[in-house]
């Protein structure tokens, strides 16, 4: 190794270590602050980082009787699981039809969906709210309502999955058809098993989105706290005027959400990379 190269490597390592510190520092602070005691110290923003005394006060509060944290957590988990399952099925169906079959109106359908996608999502919020209200799916029924909305429009997010299906050779289909398989069998027995990476990617992305959905979720729950998901509830904790008292609780609640979601993401990271890279190249 030349002298010059060694210096350049040293600089690279220094830069990478600096980047790592910047990237991890906020999470490090978040964790430290979640252990600050509410009893002996202050629960809001303070001017020091390391708690004087480590305690589990904030975590205990989350699971105390007066707090609905477990309900919110469960709500989000249910939404995330059901949405991940149904959305994946819808996306597979749409992608297969658009990738493998040629029918009248195919191009038209794709163009119309492309144009629809150019409207901002929140434009239709009020109308969706009234539609859900007509179906009795707001407030107390907000959980199925949110699932319905997420799944109903998910067909438009077919791009990455269809792009992947397009790369599977058509000769496979033809061979199976000669063997007497129908379209349904081809999809179910051949395409789906071959597309495991992209299916996992689709499900992962669908699973992670509800954990972040606070805008529409809070609009549909409309003050009915039993129907909140964690994002709505935590964001209310931070933004209500007495957020001072709830800041450390937000930290604790946020960590309990972040740990499983992050772990799942890290475990399936490879699929995620494959999905976003493929999606980026296809556009």
């Amino acid at each position, binding site marked *: 190794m030349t002298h010059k190269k060694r210096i350049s*490597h040293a600089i690279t390592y220094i830069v990478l270590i600096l980047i790592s510190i910047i990237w991890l520092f906020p*999470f490090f602070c978040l964790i430290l602050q979640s252990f600050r005691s509410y009893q002996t110290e202050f629960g809001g923003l303070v001017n020091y980082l390391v708690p004087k005394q480590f305690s589990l006060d904030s975590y205990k509060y989350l699971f105390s009787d007066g707090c609905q944290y477990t309900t919110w957590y469960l709500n989000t988990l249910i939404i995330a699981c059901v949405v991940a399952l149904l959305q994946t099925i*819808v996306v597979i*169906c749409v992608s297969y*039809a658009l990738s493998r079959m040629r029918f009248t109106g195919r191009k038209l359908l794709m163009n119309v969906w492309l144009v*629809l996608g150019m409207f901002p999502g929140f*434009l239709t919020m009020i109308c969706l709210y009234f539609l859900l209200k007509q179906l009795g799916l707001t407030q107390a029924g907000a959980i199925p309502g949110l699932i319905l909305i997420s799944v109903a*429009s998910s067909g438009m997010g077919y791009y990455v999955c269809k792009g992947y299906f397009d790369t599977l050779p058509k000769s496979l289909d033809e061979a199976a058809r000669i063997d007497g398989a129908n379209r349904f069998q081809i999809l179910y027995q051949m395409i789906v098993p071959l597309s495991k990476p992209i299916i996992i990617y689709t499900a992962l992305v669908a699973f992670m989105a509800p954990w972040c959905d606070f805008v529409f979720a809070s609009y549909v729950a409309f003050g009915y706290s039993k129907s909140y998901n964690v994002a709505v509830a935590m964001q209310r904790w931070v933004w209500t005027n007495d957020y001072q008292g709830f800041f450390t609780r937000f930290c604790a609640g946020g960590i309990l959400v972040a740990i499983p979601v992050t772990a799942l993401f890290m475990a399936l990271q490879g699929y995620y990379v494959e999905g976003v890279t493929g999606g980026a*190249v296809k556009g």
Partner: protein
Amino acid sequence: MGDKRSIGARIGDFFSWLGKDLADIGRTFAEGDFRTRISFLIMGFGQLLRGQIVRGIAMLAAEIALLYYIFGFGAGYLKDFLTLGTKGRGFNPDGTVSYGDNSFFILLYGILTIIAILMLLLVWRINVKQNEEAQRLLAAGKKLPSNKKDLYSLLDENFDKTLLALPVIGIFVFTVLPIIFMICVAFTNYDYNHQPPSQLFTWVGLENFRNILSVGGTGYGKTFFSVLGWTLVWAFFATFLNYFLGMAVAILINQKGIKFKKLWRTILVITIAVPQFVSLLYVSKMFAADGLVNAYLLKWGFIERAIPFWTNKTYARILIILINLWIGIPYMMLIATGLLMNIPEDLYESAKIDGANPVQMFFSITLPYMLFVTGPFLLTQFIGNLNNFNVIFLLTQGQPQSMKLAGGAGYTDLLVTWLYKLTVTDSDYKMAAVIGIMVFLVTAVISLVVYNVLPSVKDEEGFQ
């Protein structure tokens, strides 16, 4: 987009197609037997009599359902469609409250009824065609497809219909219908002072569009252009800073001889994995006036007074772009890592032999390749950033607010966050709808322009 024919020619095409189709329908009726002719009124009649039970029942059911909706339910709303209701809330002679017309439902169900009528026409046309085909097949002495085959085809040659039925219906009810509704709202005076069920709203023509483009007085024009300007500036920086810095980090990690590649990547990726409402909300509080950053800067004596990160317009805007790097660089790094590995190694080897240094190699090989491959991706990123609700809303909620801006807008508001505020805080639905249409126009124009100049779209083999 390759189709360069004029719109006039297309309209001409449409009418000649329509004429031919009507002639076809007429011929079917003239040459039809009694089964076909009765099917013109009672859909599915011919199919049922010819033994095509499945098709017949489907057609008949569709006709009954659509007619029931149109006449039993929709017509009552459709008749008020042009006024959106005339009878406001009042009191009956016996003192009870009479609710009168509900403009919201008149508009929504009116639209739905118009669509139902179009659907009925479409189903009717399919029905006529089926009859015509069946009659032709029988006349030629052939057998009609059996019911079993009809059903089975839904898993085979008609599998696309099975697959797409539910997604298309879902998108229709929860995306298409609401968008049409909101486009209509943009031409009404639906706002806080005209809220059903207690009040009526009505059509006002282009009034709201005039409002959003009128710069003087109480018009929304000044605010609109200010917010639009920041939206474009934000999208530009958020897209390209992330793009180049993300690529730089990827190149840094990809260098030969750098150890722990996986560790560096994993550390960066953590901001993608952690839900944004946790990470961004926390960071926004770190930079609050009484947050950690100010607290330590004060304590260590770097500053005398807290820095107004979120209350100063310029600081807030810069900080948002910087914090967005924290979220965005890892994403781009992941994508760039995969793509950089695809660049043929011998390109670099031959460049090295020609005496190129790393910087020259970056600008003559890496960058052109990346720009070529990721052109469409940059476009989607840019459009995604125009509508990047979460980052703005979790960090600042569009603050700092100002009396100089109308409609409750703040200096870091994007068009979408402003739209959200108008809907939720101000109940100013008409202006929210107008802004939604504006966002659509901006997105569509940018997409069309970029799409037409992108090298990778024009020429798929361009990079050699």
